[in-house]
């Protein structure tokens, strides 16, 4: 008994000491990790602020002509003016709506077509060269045709938005479907499942990561297509605002619209990333 009680106080501080050093090492690691992220974030902010300050100062000092190159304060003023006469919000809304619509249509249409291609090997072999050519075609070349065929308006712009993303997205989806482990499909057959079961229980859920990464690319491409469409065939939207601004030599308006577009692209990307994160947590991928 005595020997035991003697040993105890000896072993306790030892343990605590070891745990203590382990903790500080872990803490050190976390601190290092945080410091690194801090550093990156500060550099990013610094670059952004530096750019704004340089831009403003050079415009102010007359190093650059603010009529052509604008300046942060002029952009802000222009944005405020446009908000005041209510036009900016409606332009943003139109572009957002058109982009979202063409994005959703691209996803739905590519899912449908790639499912058909997976279902029929023959069909996929027949269509392959057409898809490859259409995918590598610069889609802006098609925009004038869409105007002639569909007139000017929302419909043309949504089709232009879709045309940029849809072929690449069909190819990515179909490639994703094909990469699913063929033994997993055999498993479905050994359990008495059909080809439809193989698609619904293995191919589709197994392709979720590829569906998500393709969606992330597509939202950006849809925005590109919508802006091209608005350049040519619109009376509303940020693309229209850019073209209009350049025609009446209001470059403040052009640059303001471009900056708004940057923010929209960022918001789109971040929201898809958030959706992706949620799905990954739900399915533990």
């Amino acid at each position, binding site marked *: 008994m005595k020997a035991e009680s003697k040993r105890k106080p000896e072993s306790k501080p030892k343990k605590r000491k070891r745990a203590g050093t382990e903790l500080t090492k872990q803490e050190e690691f976390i601190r290092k990790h945080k410091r690194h992220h801090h550093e990156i974030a500060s550099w990013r902010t610094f670059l952004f602020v530096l750019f704004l300050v340089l831009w403003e100062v050079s415009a102010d000092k007359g190093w650059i002509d603010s009529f052509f190159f604008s300046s942060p304060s002029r952009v802000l003023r222009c944005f405020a003016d446009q908000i005041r006469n209510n036009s900016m919000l409606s332009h943003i809304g139109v572009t957002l709506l058109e982009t979202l619509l063409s994005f959703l249509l691209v996803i739905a249409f590519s899912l449908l077509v790639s499912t058909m291609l997976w279902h029929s090997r023959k069909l996929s072999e027949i269509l392959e060269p057409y898809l490859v050519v259409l995918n590598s075609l610069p889609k802006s070349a098609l925009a004038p045709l869409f105007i002639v065929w569909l007139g000017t308006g929302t419909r043309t712009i949504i089709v232009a938005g879709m045309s940029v993303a849809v072929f690449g997205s069909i190819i990515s989806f179909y490639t994703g479907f094909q990469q699913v482990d063929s033994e*997993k499909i055999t498993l479905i057959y050994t359990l008495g499942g059909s080809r439809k079961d193989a698609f619904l*229980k293995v191919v589709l859920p*197994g392709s979720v990561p590829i569906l998500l990464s393709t969606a992330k690319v597509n939202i950006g491409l849809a925005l590109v297509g919508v802006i091209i469409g608005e350049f040519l065939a619109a009376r509303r939207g940020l693309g229209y605002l850019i073209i209009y601004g350049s025609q009446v030599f209001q470059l403040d308006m052009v640059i303001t619209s471009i900056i708004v577009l940057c923010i929209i692209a960022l918001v789109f990307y971040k929201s898809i990333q958030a959706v992706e994160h949620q799905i990954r947590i739900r399915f533990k991928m």
Partner: protein
Amino acid sequence: MASMTNILELKNIGYSYHNLHGETKALKDISFGVREGEFIAIVGPSGCGKSTLLSIIAGLLSPEEGTILVNNPDGSLHYPKIGYMLQRDHLFEWRTVYRNVTLGLELNHKMTPRRLEAVDRLLKDYGLDKFKDKRPDELSGGMKQRAALIRTLALEPQLLLLDEPFSALDYQTRLFVSADICRLIRAAGKTMIIITHDLSEAISLADRIIVLSGRPAVVKNQVNVHLTLADDSPLAARNAPEFQQYFNMLWEDLTHES
């Protein structure tokens, strides 16, 4: 253990693979019977067509030559219900363990209370009931194989086909898991055909070993295995006095192509 009547009889099975460069004969004139409750191991050089043979027995491929005769003990002519275990467990990461083991029932629209009760019993017997709602990647290699076995047994097959089912496991785990899974299959009273390239595994698990030759595969030898077992540990069979003899005999068969 094994009854005397054959529930399945393979007669002169032949199969070839075709491509533009010609025909590759995989199986030639394969004949053997399968008795009820029997454990058969098929060994042979790699690429000899063992998996093709299993796919034919499973009905995933139809033989180009020969027939498979069915002879159930009750005289009926139904092809025995077959459970197939593939080389890897292929548990789906996007499903919980429970939804993985009930996949077969789901596909066959057989999620009846009786079947689900049987699945619950198996989960409990195999020590997996606590992991029902976990994802497969939280299971150990052995537990994954047990889950895959439950998925197969849930459809209540009479004949189990195992295509090198433990080859993805490390050696030590494999020793325990193969003994474990086969003990469970014996306890469930099923007939089993297992493909393996591991001679020790074949000797320790099977009642009969069928040796196939290299391509095109023919039945080179059939060996009935009788071991004197000291205990029922996974190593017992490997320590049996007859083990080395069987091993040498099979080794001779496999290495001497004639």
